[in-house]
């Protein structure tokens, strides 16, 4: 289970706006004949912090990977920041450059230094001049508290440091939305905290975030909505307080009793 989030959260910038960031309507996806995602309807507003939970294999990763088209959906609509995801490559690349993603296994580029990892996409996708990209990258590396590692290669860093680099790398593209797919589940307990702290800071600045995570402490402290998925469907969604203290569905209750360990 997660450790308690001990620090005070500054909620002054956590404002949910009326603007829609992601709109998913009636979306279905199959792997071959296996129906992974069934009739997903989900609207995410700018500034929302959503935690997605659910048992293994329930389709959480698949859902957030559909949002930046790492997976293709077969029916329904996904509109991200006003752009509908179709097979149009231009739209896909545009959405991808607006949406940052952090993976369970970091997926840093091992042949590039930390700084190069962070400046690569801004330089080649956004066409930012190198000097400026490096300055931005250093700013974000400072934010995730590892500016001194800028010249190292990812293989020389600890897991927690690598994941923070991965977050900085995404942030360097100045994304409007951040997706996290179990960012802490490959980490040792003492490293989980440093990554969660980084994520909390992001939330405090008002970033729109979708996190697949089992860190329920994080969900309680930061999320404004918790979504519970099972068998490819959204079974329940609610604000964290009610979700944890007053779950409606039996499945949710079972899941919570397992994950909270009582």
């Amino acid at each position, binding site marked *: 289970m997660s450790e308690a989030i001990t620090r005070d959260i500054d909620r002054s910038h956590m404002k949910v706006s009326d603007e829609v960031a992601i709109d998913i309507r009636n979306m279905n996806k199959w792997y071959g004949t296996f129906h992974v995602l069934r009739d997903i309807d989900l609207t995410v507003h700018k500034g929302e912090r959503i935690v997605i939970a659910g048992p293994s294999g329930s389709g959480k990763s698949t859902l957030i990977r559909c949002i930046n088209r790492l997976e293709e959906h077969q029916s329904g609509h996904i509109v991200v920041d006003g752009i509908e995801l179709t097979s149009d490559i231009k739209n896909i*690349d545009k959405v991808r450059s607006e949406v*940052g993603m952090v993976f369970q296994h970091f997926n840093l580029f091992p*042949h590039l230094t930390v700084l190069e990892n962070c400046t690569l996409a801004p330089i080649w996708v956004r066409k930012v001049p190198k000097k400026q990209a490096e300055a931005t990258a250093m700013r974000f590396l400072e934010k995730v508290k590892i500016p001194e590692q800028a010249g190292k*290669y990812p293989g020389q860093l600890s897991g927690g440091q690598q994941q923070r680099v991965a977050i900085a790398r995404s942030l360097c*593209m100045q994304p409007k939305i951040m997706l996290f797919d179990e960012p802490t589940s490959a980490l040792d307990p003492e490293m989980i905290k440093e990554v969660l702290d980084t994520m909390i800071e992001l939330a405090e600045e008002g970033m729109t975030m979708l996190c697949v995570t089992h860190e329920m402490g994080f969900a309680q402290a930061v999320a404004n909505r918790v979504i519970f998925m099972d068998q490819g469907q959204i079974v329940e969604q609610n604000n964290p307080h009610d979700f944890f203290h007053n779950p409606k569905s039996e499945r949710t209750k079972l899941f919570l009793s397992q994950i909270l360990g009582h």
Partner: protein
Amino acid sequence: MSELHAQTVSFVRETMIPPAPPPTRQTGALRWLRENLFSGPVNTILTLLGLAIIWFLVSHFWDWFAHSVWNAASLAECRQIIAETWGEGARGACWAVIRERWNQYLFGFYPMELYFRPVMAFGFLMVALAPVLFSESLQIRRIVLIVSAVLTLVLMAMLGSPMVWLAFAAVVMIGAVVIAERHAPWLLIFSVLYPLLGIWLLWGGSLWPQIMVLASIGLGWLAWKLLVRVSPLLAMVAGVLVTLILWLVAVGPAAEDAQRLIPLAITAVDSDQFGGFLLSITIGVAGIALSLPLGIILALARRSDMFLVHTLAVTFIEFIRGVPLITLLFVASLLLNYFLPPGTNFDIILRVIIMVTIFAAAYMAEVIRGGLAALPRGQYEAADALGLDYWKAQRLIILPQALKISIPGIVSTFIGMFKDTTLVVFVGLFDPLKGVSDFVRANFAWKGVYWEPFIFVGAIFFIICFSMSRYSMFLERRLRREHR
């Protein structure tokens, strides 16, 4: 819990142990011998067996090497000297044939007074390669540049190069040493221009075709530049088309006109005058330089989702790998003539280079495909998630890593291909191993001399291939150090 146990468990360190230097490695010849050669009965037996084999080989060949003759005009004279010095029936090596004919082993029938030109081309090749091969290792690059500058200039002077050329080479090579220190990236400009310069130095003739080729590439680039805002793909196609059409249609006549106006020509050397290592290295270097990019494209094509691209790549690779190289060389020398319009003069060396290139590229593609397959999916996904398009992802993320994994395989392919250049003897070119040797033996004086040329040629091949192998290990080590 017992008293004792409680005591052992409870422990608090009061003083921290300061870091100590690591123990120095224990050395000593005897210790090394015991650990490596005589560590057990099996090891001892193997060591003794190895020593016996070495003794057998050395004792067998020792006489032959010891009785070397360097000064003689013919094999018969060699034998006579050996018999006189070491008695009737003594065997000995007749290196006189190498001393007499080394130039043909190295240059074939290239005009002797022009030997300085291939030497210069080879020296320039080093200048062109140094910034590519040793882009990070400045010390090694400096040494390579200085050593090749000195060697090239000395050799050119020894080969009787005219002063003008000597001065030209000196300016280029010393200039490269200086530029490497001041503004190294500029060296790459020379690397890019080298093919045109090298070809001109080797084959001679007018310089205008090279200039016109450059101009057509420049115009193609201009077309690309003008259209790239409209559509990158269109710009690419237009650029390549402009260059190719100009190259095929305009370069020849334009170069002739220019040559009439301002003559800029040096003595032309024909392709059938090439031979020996000059031929092997020319084909080998061109084949290596061309087969790597072609192999990469084929490997990417084979992994493509597009059915047609994928199928074409598979067919090409499997067909080429299924056919012996000699077959392709015969196709190059005979069949192509049927397909080409009569009267076209399609250089035989160029044809051979094309065949060797596609042959090596097919193998290269499979080696690189292995490297591509070894990369974790996460790398592709991370590149996609950052919004990099296919080509940028390949170029910046995927290929650098895949090629690094494939270095041993790639270099093996290069080495194999370089040795395969000896097969050009079957299409009438004078490779060093058989072509030149047969020619030398055709002279009555050297009839029957076999071992010495084989050893000489073999030794040079070994040096070149071994250097490539060492370079690949150097590169692997450097990349490993970098990435972790």
